[in-house]
Structures are given as C-alpha cells and as structure tokens.
C-alpha cells in the first residue's frame, strides 16, 4: 500500500488554508478539474501593473489538493505574470516539503488552475494564449494494473 504521510507544511496549509474564497473584483477566474474525478479548483486573481496583487481559491478535493492550492496562492502573490506563468509543480511540491507520490496529481491541478486564470486574464485583454488553456483535469495516473503474464501454475 502506498504510504500516505503528509509533511508538516501540508498539514499546516490544510488546517489553515490561506486565501480561501473568491475575489469580488477579480480580473480573471480560472476553473479546472471536475468533481467526478474527485478534484476541482477555482482560482481568482487580481492583476495590477503586470503583477498578481491578490489571489483567492476554492478547492473541492483531498487535503493535498487544498494544501497545494493554498501554498500556490502564497507563492504567486506579488509575482509578475511572467514569473507566475513559470511556476512549476516542482516549485509548489518543494514549498510543501514533498507530497506522497500518489498525491502529486493534486498539485498538478493547482498549477493548471493558475494557468487557466492567466489564460482568462490574457483573453479578457484580447490575447489568446492556447498554451495556457487547460481543458480538463490532469489525468489521474493510470491504475497500476495487476499485471499477469499468464495464469499461475
């Protein structure tokens, strides 16, 4: 069985998530994921002078998804759009002091949410950045099937 041990930082962000909610005066909102798959995320950002000056999130999902989004909002606040765009899931997982391997997909979702919000922001300004246009949820890793190469004797 996979071990599911969250770092102290993950638990801390889960217990006290930063920036929960919805910005009233958001410049853009990105929504990714799907409740059917167990994870869904909504990120609203305010942009001033090419910088993300405020950000809020809502997440339906596991502790890892919640903590990752919370961490991401902290990391992104104050960054320029170019810096934000370059934020990778490695950065976020690093900020959280690691995630159980099986939970990495949740952190992908948070990064996707940010991209989608940036896409919406650019779009509202008439710029179409298809590379930021995340369609669905990052795929769950495929179930590691019980691989049988033939019947057991």
């Amino acid at each position, binding site marked *: *069985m*996979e071990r*599911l041990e*969250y770092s102290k930082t993950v*638990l801390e962000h*889960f*217990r006290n*998530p930063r920036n*929960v*909610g*919805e910005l009233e005066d958001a410049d853009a909102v990105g*929504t990714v994921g799907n*409740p*059917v*798959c*167990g*994870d*869904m*995320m*909504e990120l609203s950002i305010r942009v001033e002078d090419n910088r993300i000056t405020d950000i809020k999130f*809502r*997440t*339906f*999902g*596991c*502790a*890892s*998804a*919640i903590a990752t989004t919370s961490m991401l909002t902290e990391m992104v606040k104050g960054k320029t759009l170019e810096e934000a765009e370059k934020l990778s899931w490695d950065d976020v997982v690093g900020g959280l002091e690691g995630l159980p391997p*099986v939970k990495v*997909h*949740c952190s992908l979702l948070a990064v996707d949410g940010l991209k989608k919000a940036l896409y919406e922001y650019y779009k509202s300004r008439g710029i179409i950045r298809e590379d930021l246009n995340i369609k669905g949820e990052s795929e*769950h*890793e495929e*179930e*590691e099937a*019980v691989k*049988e190469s*033939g*019947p*057991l004797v």
Partner: protein
Amino acid sequence: MDRVYLDAATSLPVRREVLEEMLPFFTEHFGNPSSIHELGRIPREAVERSRGHVASLISADPSEIVFTSGATESINLAMRGVLPFLKERRKVIISSVDHMSVRATASALTSGGYVVEYLPVDDVGRIDIGAAERMIDEETAVVSFPFASSEVGTVQPAGELASLAHSAGALSHVDLTMSALQMPVDVGECGIDMATLSSPDLMGPKGVGALFIRKGVKITSLIKGGGQERNLRSGSENVPGIVGMGAAARIAGERMEEDPARMRVLRDRLIEGLTSIPESYLNGDPENRLPNNANVRFSYIEGESMLLMLDLNGISVSTGSACAQKTLEASKTLLAMGLKHEEAHGSLIFTLNPTNTEHDIEKVIEVMPGIVSELRAMSPIYNMKE
C-alpha cells in the same frame, strides 16, 4: 486512548482475554503440532479446540474448517481451489459489492480463461435476485458474495443466492469477514458451500483466518508443502494465531446478543446525528444492515479531507473517496449502487466496535457539522449552487 476509533472495518484490537490465551503458545507451548513427542501434544490439542470454536460460531463441523493466514488467503483458496474440479464451467460470478480481495482474485482468473460477471445491486446495495437468477447458469463454477457488504453494511440474501448457485450446480462462497462478529450465521441452514472467516475481524490476531468447506466439496490446496490442515493448507501451523482466532470466535459467540445490540443503538444515534447535517444522507439499507455500520455522504465535499479533519480531532474513520485509495478509484460499491462519482467521493464510513461509547458518538456528532461547513466554504461546487 482518548481517540475515538470508528474504523472497526479496517482494523480491530485483539481482545485482552484472547491475547492472554495466546501468550503461553509463543514461549511455553511452542511445540509443533505435528511432533510425536510430548511437546507436540498441547499445541495439537489447542489447534483442534480452536477449530471447534470456529466451527461452532457458524454451526459447522470442525472437520469443515481449514485454518489459513487470513481472509484474503481463504478467498483465494475458495475461489481458485474448486475450479480444477469444475473444469467445464468457465464462469465465475461475484457481486459488485465485494471487497477488493474477492474482485482481484476473480480478475486474475480471466488470464486463465475464465469469464467474470458481477451481480448488480439496487440503490441500497442489495444484490438483485432476479438478475442473479438470470446470470447463474450451468457455465457457472463459483458464485461469491459477502454476507453483508463491508462498506455500506447492507445484508445480502445469502440463503437465496446459495440456493440459486446450487440449482445450477455451482458452488457458493460467502465472505463472512465483516459480519461474523455481529451477525450469527448457520452455514448449513443457508446452504453455503464455502465461507471465509477472518481472525482480526473477530478481535483475534492478524495473520490468521479460516475457510469453511462443506463436507463433500472437492477442493485443491493453494499452498503446497508438508500437508498440514489435511493437505489443504501446508506450512507449520501458526499455533498462537490459531489459538487466538479460536478464543476470539468463542467470545464472539458468547457476546452475539449483547455486543451487536449495543452497537446498533449507538450506530442509530450516529446516523441520526450525521444525517441531520444539511444535505447529508445515509448510504445503504436503513434496516437490513450491519449493526456497526454507518456510511454517510456529505454533498459537495470530499472524503479524504473530511477524514483528515476528523483525524486532527482525534477521530478515526474511513472513506469511499478515491483520494484515500492507492488506486485513486472511487468505491466500486457506491458506484454499483448508482451513486455519482462526486457522491462516492464525499462518503465516510463509520464502523463501531464493541468498546465504543456514547461519548464517542456524541463527539463525532459535535465536531462533524463544523468540518462539513468549513470544507463547504472552501468548495467551489457548494458555492456555485448557492
């Protein structure tokens, strides 16, 4: 322990009295039951006494009980061991509310040329007898189902299913893992051919289980070797474990009136408290269910995060959410009952053990509403619908 433990379906402590009975067999009576010298005698007699206790619990004959290393091994032995004697029958039928150990055992058979079919259930998780009647035929080798679903607790029509299997010349296997501590069963009366029992789920030690095999059922061993357990399960007997399982079975039998009745009352209080939280619903059959099981879904939020919030409050439970599973798959049982994925994700499984108290239940009822609203506040779907 100040923790509130409501995860009996996942693991149970060994009863003190059971452990006491086991102890001498680790050190003093450490002999091998097969030894013909004096040190083999006490272990040998103890193993047979345990076999008697286990048999009694399900009204079987001691000669119909084989000790194994646990429920999973019993299930593998039952479902695979009979196939060589039913060669022309190439279909294995299991229920869609079976534990993963049954599902994985059946799945593995497909590479050996077997077809696996799944008995459908209704919206409370009860196996559809009409469908079973249509599915079980002369192609069918084994029909396996749980006495009660381990996740949602719904009790199955065991007698009817066993007799459908019989009429078609197939063998029935019933997984008693989750029910044996709580519900009496008479394997003869039910017409069951094989039944799996788990020691830890009887509050005995882990690493032991048993398989009931009705007299006359032909079966071959899974594990080959020294020929122990009448050649059905080789390997030197786990004497302390078997002694523990015997003691656990005996005590379970003695407390079969008292413990489940108490758990049922507490369980009902828990269901009442939890389903009074807005948009929170009981999964499974409200009447015909395991006395210790409350499976509740809380709309708009996800099970693993609820589970962890409860854990941080000192309460242990399980969830049917994919996020808590290695496979990242939502509970097959809940999906088979027709729940939507997001409903399955939002389900928690509370299972009581005989030591739970009213205080435990009240504590859950006290903290759960706060957890639900906190997570709902964070949930985009909850806020969309508002």
